[in-house]
Each structure stands twice: as C-alpha cells, then as structure tokens.
C-alpha cells in the first residue's frame, strides 16, 4: 500500500500544480475543483486493481492538462472581468 500512497500523493500534488497553470479562469477553477473532488471521492479505495486504474487515469489526465496548458498559453486570451474583481477584493 505504501508504494501506492506516495504515488497517489505525488500525482495529487502534480495535478494541482499543473491545473493552476491554466490560462483560462474557467478551465483552471474547474480542473482544480474536479481534481480535489475525484481524490476525495476515491480516498477509501483499497483494491489494488482499482487503484492502478485510477492511477493510470490520473497520469493520463496529468499529461493532458500539461498539453492543454501549453495550448492555452499559445492561444489564450486576456482575463475575465471577475479575476480583476477577485483581485480587488483580495
């Protein structure tokens, strides 16, 4: 189990780190929320087969996020008005 544990924790950290890089407010907030939700939902999964499947899915998604962050950097556009709003509030 412990091998899974460190793997899962590192995947979680990487997914959060990469999701924060999305240029688009919508994709960024969605991905962050979704990553946290999925890990919470599956935190009690102990079955090794199921865990390996989830790890594979997370790894694929991590690569997808990395690719799409680059696409967003190349073709993204400005910020939403709400991002300035949040900044003012914060």
């Amino acid at each position, binding site marked *: 189990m412990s091998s899974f544990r460190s793997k899962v924790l590192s995947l979680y950290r990487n997914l959060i780190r990469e999701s*924060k890089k999305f240029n688009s407010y*919508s994709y960024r907030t969605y991905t962050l929320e979704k990553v946290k939700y999925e890990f919470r939902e599956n935190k009690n999964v102990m079955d090794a087969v199921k865990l390996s499947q989830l790890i594979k899915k997370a790894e694929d998604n991590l690569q997808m996020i990395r690719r*799409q962050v680059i696409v967003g950097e190349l073709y993204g556009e400005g910020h939403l008005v709400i991002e300035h709003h949040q900044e003012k509030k914060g």
Partner: protein
Amino acid sequence: MLPTFCRCGSRVFSSRGYLFATRALQTKVHDHTNNVTQPRDRPQVQAKHIDISDVRKDMPDKEFRPLYLDAQATTPLDPRVLDAMLPYFISYYGNPHSRTHAYGWETEAAVEKARKQVADLIAADPREIIFTSGATESNNVAVKGVARFYKSKKKHIITSQTEHKCVLDSCRALEAEGFDVTYLPVQKNGVIDLKELEAAIRPDTVIVSIMTVNNEIGIKQPITEIGALCHSKKVFFHTDAAQAVGKIPLNVNEMNIDLMSISGHKLYGPKGVGAMYIRRRPRVRVEAIQSGGGQERGMRSGTVPTPLVVGLGAACEIAAQEMEYDSMRITALSQRLIKKINEALPQVVQNGDPKQSYPGCVNLSFAFVEGESLLMALKDVALSSGSACTSASLEPSYVLRAIGADEDLAHSSIRFGIGRFTTAEEVDYAAEKCIQHVKRLREMSPLWEMVQDGVDLKAIKWTQH
C-alpha cells in the same frame, strides 16, 4: 495578489498582447512519457492574439472579458475534447472514406470509435448514428427526410409551438409541399398536454417531433410518455435533444425514440458537428437531403470531418462520465442564482415550471425592466434574452408567448445559461450586477413608480395615439 495571477513567472499581468509562452515551449513540448528529448534552445514564441478592431470598434477591453453565462447558445470546448481532436488536425488528416491507404484506415477507425462513443451515451447501436453538421441538419434530415420518404402513404406531421426554429421551418417547408402540420400548443408551465397530443394523432400521421429540453426556458418534455404514445399508435417519434444530450440521462430504447438530433457544441464539443440517431429495428427510412458520395449510408453525403467527429465522440464519453458531477454542480449553482435574485428583487417571474426544467437554463422575467436594456447594462456578463438565433430581432420570443407570458413580461426576460465551467463566483457576480441594474432601471421607470404607489396597471385605460 492572489495566486491566480502569479502562476506564470514570465507573465506581467497587464501586458496583454505580449504574453510569451517561453516557459511552456522550452520545458514541456518534449514531455512525452516514452520519448523524452532534451529541450533545444528555441526563439521565444509569442502567443497568438486575434485583433478584430478593424471590423468592430466597440469591443470591450480584452483584459476585462465578460463572464460567460450563455450555455444554451454554445458551450466552451472541454480541454479534454480539444486534446482528443488535435492529433486529427495535425497528423491524421486522411479521408476516412479512403480505403486504399493507412491515412484512410486510421481516420476511419477514429470515426467508428466516435460513433460508438455517441451511441453509448444514448444507449443506441453505433450503426444507428449518422454524423451531420449539427442539430439543425439532423432536424432537417429527420423531419423532412421521414415525411418525404413516407409521403405516398402518410401526410400529417405533429410538432409543438415551442420547438426550435429549424424544426418549425422544416415543417413550414413541408406544408408548402402539401403536408399537413399540427403545431401543438403548450400549457402554461411549458409542457405539452399528452391528451392533446393523443387527440392530434391521425391515421395518416407519419411523425411526431417534440424537443427534449427547450433552449429558451429549459422545460423538459415528458419524452418517455410521448415515446410510449407514439409507439402504441405506430407513429415515428423524433426528438430534438440538442440541449439535453449529455446533460440528462437519455435512453432511446426505454424512451421509444425513433430519431434524435444531437449537437456537438452544446455538450462542450466542437461547433460544426452533430449526429442523428435513426432506429434500425423497426427500421426508420429517410430520404436524404444532400446528394453526393453516399457517405453515412447514403443519408448524409459528404466527407465526414474526422477531427470534429472525434471531438463529438470525446465530448459524449466525457458527458457520460461527468453527468452526475455536472448535474450536481449545475443544480446547486442554479438554485444559488435564483435564491440570490429572488431575495433581493420583488416581481421576478421564472418562465417555465422549475420543477420540470433543466436547471442549467434559468429564464427570468424582471417586471418593469426591458430585457434588452438590462442586457446592455450587464456588459460584464455574456447573457441573452432567449435563443441566439432570434436575438437579432426585438420581437418577444415565440416560446414565451406560447407559454402565455404577458407581452410585457416576454419583453423583460433574460436567460441565464449555467454550464460545466460556471463557478459560484461567476453566479454571485452575475446576480449582484443583475440586482443592481434591475433596481436602477426600475427606479427610472414611471410604471414601477405607479405600482409602488399602489396603482393597478391592468386597470388603467391607456389612450391610444
């Protein structure tokens, strides 16, 4: 400063137009798991920005883009969908109908995988899915195609008054060809009356076309009941499910649906692609509208656009996975919006019965406020007063008139479209702005003042000039 603005060290917040994606390109492009190469020195790549200032002078500042709350008009592409599509724009450009080389084989395999992904979402067989350019084309092929194919025996079509323009216009075109069309009225809650539908079915009725979820008021029609009724009367049942597929569970067999229209860009897929479900057992036949190479089993000639179809397939698969999660979020956000507005403003009417609506479509009428002026004031939020197809006209929506909304309330409606990527902050911001501007506009309205003074507007006899 919030972390949202410091994610990229190389980016200066206000320097729009000069964003350099250096970090990305120098460190990540070669990040293939099984093919890691060292990054080479590359010149800096400038992000592509599109300038349309020569076409439109009144565009808002690109650094202050409005929030998007118009999910019924179209939805943003899910990044997972784009990720699935890009290889087919770049490497796999073969014509899926080319049988003589690998370029054709690889894209044909991708198209067939997508066909299965679409079919799985609605519990159909992949052979029952035809790719089209969108739900408008699917609706045209379904309604006109079935009517024309069976025209020697049957001449009557039933639809409802709140259908999308493309179904209504297809029916109009068929009327000109000698078909008889019944446009069923809807009840005050927006739902059709099943007894009226049953009474309208004649021995020569060929097809009933009723949409699953309405695009303006979000009303869900009782598809299962309509399907069962049509099945018992041996009438084909077509449903325009553009607003429903991927958002609410649909099963073509349990619901006795014979034909269904699906749109790509309403479920976070690409624009310009859609699908039509057409039942094989018992077989439904259509007369093709477009003549050509006989692709899609002769029902829709023209090369199947592989990247778009791959995107539609990916969008359907993701929608199936995410339906529960999306629905949970969208329901909560929808309730949050309605509660916030209702707590702050009196005399707000929700169009369409909320109990029978898809929660992602909230259509509100603000009494004594003109919808168009509210939309103008809400520059920070991308909203619409109804369907995008008819938003160019100042006429009140025919859907709102069909549900019996008063003329003045029909003029004061705003549609809030909540989708997968809408956040609670966006909903709060939109609600706050909306409340602020409705209050301001009402204060300017003499009618509102009269109502505050206790005058019953309906009792006033206005002199005509």
